[in-house]
């Protein structure tokens, strides 16, 4: 409504909290605009009306203050800020108490990727699949340093602390794909720690839960201004090539956070122009980069570490299915 005039872009209101937060945001916005105009209009008016050229120096009024006016202004402001506080506090409490029947998901933040663990043992990387119009409660912890799960379209954010659990809950009221950011500085690839929330209809969600297949054909409605990253959504059509599918997986599974595809130095070794070559390991032995080296490095990363890199790669055992593994290998092979 009114605030739309001000912003030509409007962040999508994709959760139950979004309209609530936006209402308070607009209230403070209008209060700020009005008080800003009063101060600036007053200043500009006085400056022109009492310009040195119009009013000589010695003809100014002797006013030292007006306590009643000041107290009035102070009291009015006190009332307004108390209203803002109470309104914010009430909405905040709603954000902090998840309903008991919420669909619970474990979230593990780790240096530079998000892992979502479902009750039935499924583990997704950088991808949170949730049902529409159902309360979802995220129980979050971190493996190493502070992170913060931030979904702008849902207006929710919560820091993720090592060795303790914090909670976020929401009801996604719109199907589609929404970006997840890390909002607490966590090191080199803090800005690459991106994820996606995929909100599915109730039946699609249950089918995914049982079969692990995402809805085919129906183009998941993408978030406001175009999809997060430009590659094709890997789970949509089956017809794209294995290497392309691998490229989508390489990004969505969070590999890009540490392994660069352009040869630039990263936390992990670069993966371009490497297939079939000999690499030296930390214990000095040499090994050829072939299918089972890649497969082993994905499932048991600590087994053969390339010289000069730390053994900090998390295991993806149980998260990468056979066909996804072949897609990744095809992609790495294609990186000549």
């Amino acid at each position, binding site marked *: 409504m009114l605030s739309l005039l001000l912003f030509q872009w409007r962040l999508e209101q994709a959760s139950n909290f979004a309209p609530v937060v936006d209402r308070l945001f607009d209230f403070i916005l209008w209060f700020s605009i009005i008080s800003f105009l009063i101060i600036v209009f007053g200043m500009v008016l006085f400056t022109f009306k009492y310009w040195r050229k119009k009013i000589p120096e010695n003809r100014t009024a002797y006013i030292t203050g007006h306590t009643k006016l000041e107290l009035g202004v102070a009291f009015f402001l006190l009332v307004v800020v108390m209203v803002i506080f109470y309104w914010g506090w009430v909405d905040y409490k709603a954000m902090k108490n998840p309903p008991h029947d919420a669909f619970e*998901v*474990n979230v593990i933040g780790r240096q530079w990727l998000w892992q979502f663990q479902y009750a*039935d043992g499924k583990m997704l990387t950088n991808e949170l699949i949730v049902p529409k119009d159902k309360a979802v409660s995220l*129980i979050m912890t971190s493996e190493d340093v502070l992170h913060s799960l931030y979904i702008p379209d849902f207006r929710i954010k919560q820091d993720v602390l090592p060795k303790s659990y914090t*909670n976020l809950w929401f009801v996604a009221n719109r199907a589609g794909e929404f970006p997840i950011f890390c909002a607490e500085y966590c090191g080199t690839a803090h800005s690459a720690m991106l994820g996606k929330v995929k909100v599915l209809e109730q039946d699609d969600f249950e089918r995914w*839960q*049982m079969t692990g297949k995402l809805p085919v054909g129906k183009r998941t409605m993408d978030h406001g201004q175009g999809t997060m990253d430009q590659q094709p959504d890997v789970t949509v059509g089956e017809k794209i090539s294995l290497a392309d599918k691998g490229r989508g997986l390489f990004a969505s599974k969070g590999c890009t956070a540490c392994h660069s595809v352009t040869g630039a130095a990263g936390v992990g070794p670069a993966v371009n122009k490497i297939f079939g070559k000999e690499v030296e390991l930390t214990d000095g032995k040499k090994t050829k980069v072939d299918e089972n080296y890649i497969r082993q490095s994905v499932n048991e990363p600590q087994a053969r570490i390339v010289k000069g890199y730390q053994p900090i790669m998390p295991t993806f055992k149980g998260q990468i299915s056979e066909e996804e593994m072949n897609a990744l290998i095809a992609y790495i092979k294609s990186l000549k």
Partner: protein
Amino acid sequence: MAKGHKFGGHARAYIKVWAALLVLTAVTVSVSYYDFGDWNAFVAMLVATVKGVLVCLFFMHLMYDNRVNQVVFISAFVFLAIFILLTGSDEWFRREMKPVKVTDTASAALGAADMEKLMKAAPELAAKGKEIYGVQCAACHGADGKGDGPAASALNPKPRDFTSGVWKLGGTPSQVFHTITHGSPGTSMAGFASVSVPDRWALVAYLRSLSPNKPEDTPETLKQSGVDKMLDQGPGTRDQGPKTTEAIPVSFAMKQYVQTDVGVTDLTVPPAGTDSVSLGQKIYQSDCMSCHGFQGKGGIPVSVVGFVSEKERATLKTKDFAVSRQTWTYNQAAFIDLVSNGLPGRNMPGFADYSAEEWSALYRYVQSLRAR
């Protein structure tokens, strides 16, 4: 000096203050030897503050100083108090979250190839088995497997003596595996499905190492104990233990069912057990009574492996529920947490596989025991 200091020549006052300080120190040290609960901290702080005030007023002449110095010094403590109280308002009032209980993914990914490898009793498997045995089984079967565990005295029939070579339900690896998984009906041997599949195979290897009589598996013993199904299923098959049904949403199952068999009208869910206290009693007697005694009075010596120091090992007995003051006595979630995880150090095995309704029945029964 200009103002002719009032407090010049106060040697005698200093000695008196000094004496007072010594007395107060003696008081506070002696008080600390007695346990008044929270009062101890309060008394210690009160005495320390009195001593501090004495030092400030007399030794540091704050008494005769001008107003500004006094305000300055006191403001330091005011801001320190603000710091403590507001930080405390956060640290001491945080809510505790518990993560979702996820079914054991490790076994889910176990392939048939691994099952083959586990069945052949390897030496290091037996060593791992011994360690698990100490935690899960020593309570009844005794530290050396002779069936003379501390809890054995209260059991009838007596727990199996592995060194005797007698296997009631068969001694082949698959049969022992089946007995561990589903327990021995008619006796107090509960099923240990919550132990992961590799751990159970390690136990099998260790138990057979104790027993002189080691029969080998035959195809029909495999089939009879259901282990054969585990062999031929492909990689990533689910854990062979009891199937976790609640993962399938009821609404989905209903829709599938209606779509395939049109014409079914309604599906009534059978009522859970009769009144809950007797259900609680049944669970208590089957799983807990052997160590915690009939009335929950405890006092049964529990032989312990590992963590506890020498002198504690002999005297460790199960506690009397009525006396215990721990958090589980007033918080059911803590009770469920404690019982499902068990106390490895104190040789209490974990019992995880109860439905929510059985948990509350057991909890109410244990509370009724405490009330007697």
